[in-house]
Each structure stands twice: as structure tokens, then as C-alpha cells.
């Protein structure tokens, strides 16, 4: 691991340079969509014509289920909110939840994975079994249980958003744990760790200095894919009524839940726009993650076709399909 890190070796920039043709197209599309998400989230108050919980304008209340018009470009919801404003403000909630969920789960997962993989012993065994159990469980149900615990099923103001983020964190921690642990187990037997130990470096320093840097190489892939899963989980929670109250923040899943009845009576604008926002967000993040994943796997990288290169893939991540670390997580 050289210390001369130029901008060219930064995670995404490096892959962008490495990619060609179709894969570059996918990566660029993903980056553009993700960039739009971030921009919209930052500029939401400027872009949105009304507040996300605003019910009345200068001419009185907006009225419920109004079809798209000049006043309300995308119509109003059954609760009488402006659809466009809620869709735009929804990016803020989405981004906030993604960032909090991923930061929390990386911190927890990496720490646990490092300690578990490096120290081994009974702690390692217990953590592996627990992580496997949690990992195998339907993530949405896990998030529901976590949401009940954190907010008691009630959504307060910021608490609701934070609760959703933490609920999603619970789902992700095992993934980071597994990958980092597997890498740590592999790395701790390498010569440079051995030599550091011989020199008398403390365990903590070896873990943070030598192992951590090498064990976290594959994390950017998981982060992008988890970001998209976080959005889907958040929307799922909201759809089941465990999301955030409409007055606290704009959340697409909640809006979709309220639009089920609208759909039956042919009111399309309350469901299509928040849904499309979810699809575009997840699409952008998945395209980025997918491209990074393909570029990291020589079998899938479309480039000069090396005929018989054995696949030294460290991690293969499939959105929604789980991920397999290079070493089997269950065998110490």
C-alpha cells in the first residue's frame, strides 16, 4: 500500500479511468443520478415550491388529491400536501438516512470484524454465529423489530428519521463484519503483520495501522450497494407505516402507502412520482455499485479479454443477492 496516493487512485476515479464502453456508460449514469440526488437534497428548499408539510398557500388550503396543475405541478396527495415538494424534500430524508446508516454500520461492522478476526477465540465464534443468524434473516422484518425498539413504533420528529437509520444499520452491520473479518483472518498471517508483531508493536496498533487499511479495500463496493438497499428498506418501513410522520419529514414510502387507495380510483400522480424518485435513487446507487463490482472482478471486466486468468476475486457482491467474502465466514 503505497503512501503516494494521487487523485487517480481514489476509489471511484480510479475505476472510472479503468472502465470502457458499456461499463463506463453504466458507471457515468449512476454517478450522474447519484449526483442529482445529492444536489436536489442540498437545494430542496430552493427547488420546492412549497414546504413538505405545508397544507395551505396564500389562496387557502391546497385541497386533497388535486390533479397536476400550474399551482401544483405534480398534484396534491390525499393528505393535501404538494406532491412535487414532498418528492423533492424526500431526497433529504433519503440522503440523511443513507449517510447515518452507512457511517454507523461501517464503524460498528469494521470494529467488530477487526477485533473478531484478529483476536479469534470464543468471541469470534459467538460473533460469527450471531452475524450469520442476523444476516440470514429477512432484513425488513429485522428493521421493523429495530424500529419498534427504537421508537416504540411511534415516530417523533428527528427521532423518526434517526430510528429508521439505526434500524437499517442493524441489518448492515453483519455484512461489514463478515467481509472485514474474512480479510482480517487472511491478512493477520501475512509476513508484514508477523514482522510488526516481532518488532513488538502493540496489538491495537497492528490492527489499526496494518490490518485495517488492507482489510477495508472492498468496502466501497458494499457501501454503494448498501446505500441502495438502505433506501429500499426505508421505503419499506414507511410503506408499512413505520416511517416518519408526514409533518416531521417527507418520506417516499409513507406517501406510497397513502396512495394505495388512490391507485384503485385511478389517481396516478400520488404514487408514480414518489415511486419514480425511489427507483431513480436506487438505480443510480446500484449502477455505481454494480460497475465498481464488475470492475473489481476480472472475469466481468470488459476489457482486453484475458483468456485464462483465474479469478482472484476478493468479494463478489450482488444487490439483493447477498455477498460472499473470499474466505468462508464460518470457518475460523
Amino acid at each position, binding site marked *: 500500500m503505497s503512501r503516494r496516493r494521487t487523485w487517480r487512485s481514489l476509489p471511484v476515479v480510479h475505476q472510472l479511468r479503468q472502465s470502457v464502453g458499456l461499463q463506463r456508460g453504466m458507471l457515468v449514469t449512476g454517478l450522474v443520478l447519484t449526483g442529482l440526488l445529492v444536489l436536489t437534497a442540498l437545494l430542496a428548499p430552493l427547488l420546492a415550491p412549497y414546504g413538505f408539510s405545508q397544507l395551505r398557500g396564500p389562496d387557502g388550503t391546497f385541497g386533497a388529491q388535486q390533479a397536476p396543475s400550474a399551482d401544483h405541478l405534480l398534484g396534491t396527495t390525499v393528505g393535501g400536501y404538494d406532491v412535487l415538494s414532498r418528492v423533492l424534500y424526500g431526497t433529504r430524508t433519503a440522503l440523511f438516512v443513507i449517510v447515518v446508516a452507512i457511517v454507523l454500520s461501517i464503524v460498528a461492522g469494521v470494529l467488530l470484524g477487526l477485533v473478531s478476526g484478529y483476536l479469534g477465540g470464543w468471541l469470534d465464534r459467538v460473533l460469527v454465529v450471531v452475524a450469520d*443468524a442476523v444476516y440470514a434473516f429477512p432484513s425488513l422484518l429485522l428493521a421493523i423489530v429495530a424500529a419498534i425498539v427504537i421508537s416504540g413504533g411511534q415516530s417523533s420528529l428527528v427521532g423518526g428519521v434517526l430510528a429508521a437509520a439505526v434500524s437499517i444499520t442493524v441489518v448492515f452491520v453483519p455484512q461489514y463484519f463478515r467481509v472485514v473479518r474474512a480479510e482480517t483472518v487472511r491478512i493477520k498471517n501475512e509476513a508484514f503483520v508477523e514482522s510488526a508483531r516481532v518488532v513488538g508493536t502493540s496489538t491495537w496498533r497492528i490492527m489499526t495501522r496494518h490490518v485495517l487499511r488492507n482489510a477495508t479495500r472492498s468496502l466501497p463496493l458494499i457501501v454503494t450497494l448498501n446505500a441502495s438497499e438502505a433506501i429500499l428498506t426505508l421505503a419499506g418501513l414507511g410503506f408499512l407505516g413505520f416511517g416518519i410522520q408526514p409533518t416531521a419529514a417527507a418520506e417516499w414510502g409513507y406517501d406510497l402507502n397513502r396512495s394505495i387507495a388512490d391507485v384503485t380510483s385511478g389517481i396516478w400522480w400520488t404514487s408514480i412520482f414518489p415511486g419514480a424518485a425511489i427507483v431513480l435513487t*436506487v438505480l443510480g446507487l446500484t449502477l455505481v455499485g454494480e460497475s465498481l463490482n464488475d470492475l473489481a472482478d476480472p472475469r466481468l471486466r470488459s476489457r482486453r479479454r484475458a483468456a485464462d486468468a483465474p479469478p482472484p476475486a476478493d468479494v463478489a457482491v450482488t444487490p439483493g443477492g447477498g455477498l460472499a467474502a473470499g474466505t468462508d465466514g464460518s470457518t475460523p
Partner: protein
Amino acid sequence: MTTATQDPAPPAEDAPAGRRRRRGGGLGSYLLVRALLIIPTVFILVTTVFFLMRTTGDPITAALGGRLPADQLAERIREAGYDRPLLVQYLDYLGGLLRGDFGTTLSDRRPVTDVLVTYGAATLELTVYSMAVALLVGIPLGMVAARLRDRFPDAALRFFAIFCYATPVFFAGLLLKLVFSVWLGWLPVAGRVSTRGELQLTRGDTHTGIYLIDAISTGDGELVGEVLRYAVLPSLALGLLTAGVFLRLVRTNMIGTLGSGYVEAARSRGVAESRLVRKHAYRPALVPIITVIGLQIALVLSGAVLTETTFEWRGLGFQLGQYLQARDFVAVQGIVALLAVIVALTNFVVDVVAALIDPRVRYS
């Protein structure tokens, strides 16, 4: 993925006896370890869920707090035994689980097992349909994508796969509903069958709860058609969610097998490319599918909860949504615990099948 070439044939008759015994032992002990692993998995999940749910307080206060006077509330709590030490409650709960007692719901006072029996069949039916949709869509398209790698159809199919994943199942459901039920009027909006059909189905003496089987057993062709028409949209919504995963998996594996030595050898003997795909490469590329079907069970169950809520498909997921709304956490806990058992059992079955098909699995 070169199983086909190295696939060790069953030990020949003249193989040394010791070698054969070891081989059988490998599979046997592998299965035993896998079977035993179910116990800690279920135990951990059930324990975690129990203690997590209790950190918010007792379920009765959660469900009825504020609606009952304090003394009545305390009475109900004492009656249900929620005033005892947490550990006693936990052991009581575990004991109940071992006897197959998942608790009694608070909102409608039904044993959770009763809820499971009543609504489990509906969820099973939906899951099977959607899995069929996923495989029928995912496998052929994945093969096409691998065959035409890096050309336009491949790009389009991969985009389709990502799109399938990126669309939340309930949004897909709402869109399908909007187009095919509301605008075109081709298919019913929600539910499993019409009220008239339901009467007919429950009247039959063999009542499985799986409507297709029940409908077929009535011998009424019209009813079978109706049941199927109701099932189309939910199955599509849930099936497309996983179809994308299968498509990508088949594509990746096919690319791997198409580049492997034995396929290369067949290609150099002049075997046509289409025949390579159909006869040589597809089998080893499909083995991982079996494992992934098992991994998808978690995703499909999550999806089923959302699909059922979207389409008012009265299964476990729909019921779970209802109990969540009613803040009936005993029922939620019971359903979640049961789903934990189902997931663990499915994973075990998948492990067994994978070990039987691919001998390398049991030695890794």
C-alpha cells in the same frame, strides 16, 4: 464452475472400501453439523427479538396504554404475567416455543399458531408463484445475456435486471395495478378471489388454504381461472424482484462456464455456439442457482410482506402489517419467530441439496 468436467462419479465398485466410508462420513457429518446449526440460529434470533421487544416495555401497555385506566391496565399486565422478572418471562416464552406455543395475540385473542395456520398457506402460494415467475424470467434471459455478452441485448437485459432490483416491490405492485386493473381493467385490483369464489372454495370438504389446489379440487374450471387471474399481478410484482437477481447470476456463471476449458475444447471441436450454451455450459451454471434460491428466501419473505399489503393478499405478511398497525407486538413477535424458523429450515434444505449436487461444498 467446472463441475461437469471434474464431477467425481459415484465411487466405482472396485474403489477401496475405506475411501468410500470416509466419503459417506463427509456428507453425513456435514449434514449433521448443518442440522445442528439451525438450533443456535433460531435460538439467537428468537432471543434477540424477545429482549429487543421487551426493552420498550410490556406489550399490553404498548397496545392498550392510554386507552384503559391505569388499574385495569395493571390488572391485565398481571394476568398475562408481564409483571414477573424478565428472565422468568423469557424462560416461559422459550418453554412455550418448544411446545409449539408462540403466544396469543392481544388484539383478537387468537393463538399465534392459529394465525400462522390460517394465513401461512396464502403466503406459501404467493411465494411459489413468484419464485416460478422469477425462474422463468431470470434463467432464459440470463442465458441470452451471457451468449450476447457486451452487445446491445446484454446491455438492455442487465439494465432490466438492475431496474427490477431498483423498483420497490410495492411500487411495482401499484404500477401493475394502475395499468392492468384500473386503466385496462383486465385483472382484479386486490384480494385472492372474489367473495362469491371464496364461499365456493371454503365450502369444499378438502380445504388446504392454497386456493389453486382448492379450486382444482372443486372441479370448477371457471373458479380455477378466477383464482389464477387474482394471482397474476402479485406474483409478477414479487417475482420480478427476484428475477433480476437470477438473471444476473445466470449471466455471470454462464460467462464463467463459457470461458472454461471443457467448453473451449468443445468449441474447438466445432460445436455450434448455441449448442454450447444449451448442452454444455448451462448445467454447471445452474448449480449456484439452487443455493441462491435459498438465500433469496429472506428477500422474498420481506417482499411478500410488502406485496401482500399492496394487494390485500390475506397472508402472513398482510396480517403482520395489520398487527403492526394495531401495535400488537405479541403477534408480531410470534410471526417473526416463526419466519426465523422457516428461514433457518430453508437454508438447511438448500445446504443439503447443494451438498448432494456439488461434492466440493461439503469439504470446503
